[in-house]
């Protein structure tokens, strides 16, 4: 298992590296250049990391569904096309490069003070993942339950009062 993880991590690094390399050459990315599996651990406080099978998903969805306009392929969304019809391939491709982890931090919020800023409603990383993943899963009938993708850690169970933290006392409340 740990070996498998290492392999994936290596793959990730290679993928990102090659992406940078290829982008430098001005070629559009191909799905086969992408990492096969991506480990997402932004919810590690409460859940185990999620192994996202990128390769499998490239067979089910269009690249632009997730990588909106950053692959050098014209986006499908009408309002995006207005500006990004001829956008070249971007230097950075991973979700977290545009979608901030600390979306509501003081610094992130301060960027909204710039009146020139156009993308004012860009969701944070967690929001971007879920809005896109769950949105698509709902359409195509993929798994949508929280714990279909996320295995709850002890801390998560503690917060959700689930598992061994499940409430035992019942009917004590209300008083009337």
């Amino acid at each position: 298992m740990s070996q498998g993880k290492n392999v994936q991590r290596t793959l990730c690094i290679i993928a990102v590296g090659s992406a940078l390399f290829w982008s430098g050459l001005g070629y559009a990315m191909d799905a086969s250049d992408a990492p096969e599996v991506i480990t997402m651990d932004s919810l590690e406080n409460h859940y185990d990391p999620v192994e996202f099978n990128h390769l499998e998903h490239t067979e089910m969805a269009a690249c632009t569904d997730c990588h909106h306009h950053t692959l050098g392929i014209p986006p499908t969304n009408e309002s995006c096309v207005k500006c990004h019809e001829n956008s070249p391939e971007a230097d950075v491709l991973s979700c977290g490069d545009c979608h901030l982890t600390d979306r509501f931090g003081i610094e992130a919020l301060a960027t909204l003070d710039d009146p020139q800023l156009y993308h004012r409603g860009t969701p944070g990383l967690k929001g971007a993942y879920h809005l896109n993943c769950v949105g698509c899963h709902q359409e195509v009938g993929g798994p949508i339950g929280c714990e279909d993708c996320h295995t709850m850690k002890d801390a998560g169970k503690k917060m959700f009062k689930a598992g061994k933290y499940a409430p035992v006392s019942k009917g004590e409340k209300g008083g009337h």
Partner: protein
Amino acid sequence: MKNKIINRRNFIKGGLGGAVVASQLKGKESQAAGAFDHYPDSMGVLVDVTRCVGCRSCEAACNQEQGLPEPEKPFNDYSVFDEVHPHGGHGREERRTTEYNYTIVNKYNVPGVDHPLFRKIQCNHCLEPACLTSCFVNAYSKTPEGAVVYDPTVCVGCRTCMIACPFYVPTFKYGSAFKPRIMKCVFCHETRLKEGRPPACVEICPQEALTFGKRTDLLEMAKSRIRSNPDKYVDHIYGEKEAGGTAWLYLSPVEFDKVGFDVHVPHEPVINFVRDFLSIVPMVLLIWPALFTGFHLLSNRKDAKSQHDEDNQEV
């Protein structure tokens, strides 16, 4: 705040007469209700009903952050959505916030929508809070950051705030004889908002159904969401004008009453409805004494006159 303290001191110094009450009342009222310009940089949360999937993470995070009592069911138990007449309101069919939870999410099956919709309920943190204006011991304050917070050390337990809140938010610990208090969402003011961090529910929300930011930014954001997706949203931002404006704002894909919002909440601060009465108070205090003493003098004069007439007749 300083101003307030000075007011209080003058007030006590000035004696306990009604006239002082009136002048105080007038001064405070115009300050609190009339000229008050809100806090321009106060924070808020934009709730997008189209995004919420009913995972109840916000309920769980709130419970942990605020150290609230253990729930009846785990927060990943979704059978609560189908409960009818849960405790908290005797005749209410829906779940609502209670003294045990500051926020809850309810599910709505709306005809014509192929999936259920979810709506989060918590204190909306009004710009001119009715709870605050109705409280006779100043237990509530609106912080510059935007939270409406409550001070249990001065509360008398009259529960007028619960009458006044147009959103039925404040709840009371009826079960406690010696330490009852109001329980309501405080925007995580002490633990987070004060430091500029979003409340626990916003931070945990996986769908970013809750967007934290300056209220003014959020309004813009909400408008642009409606503008760029006119088919997805109803063209209304609940909370922009409701109750005079609230820090928490909502976007919905269907008419708001279909997802449990009270669409009859007036579009002005509740205090506006009370103003008519407040304005007569100084008048009564000033005019009545003169008027009635005048009546007295008149009727006595009549007495004296008839007495005089009688005397004359006798003579």
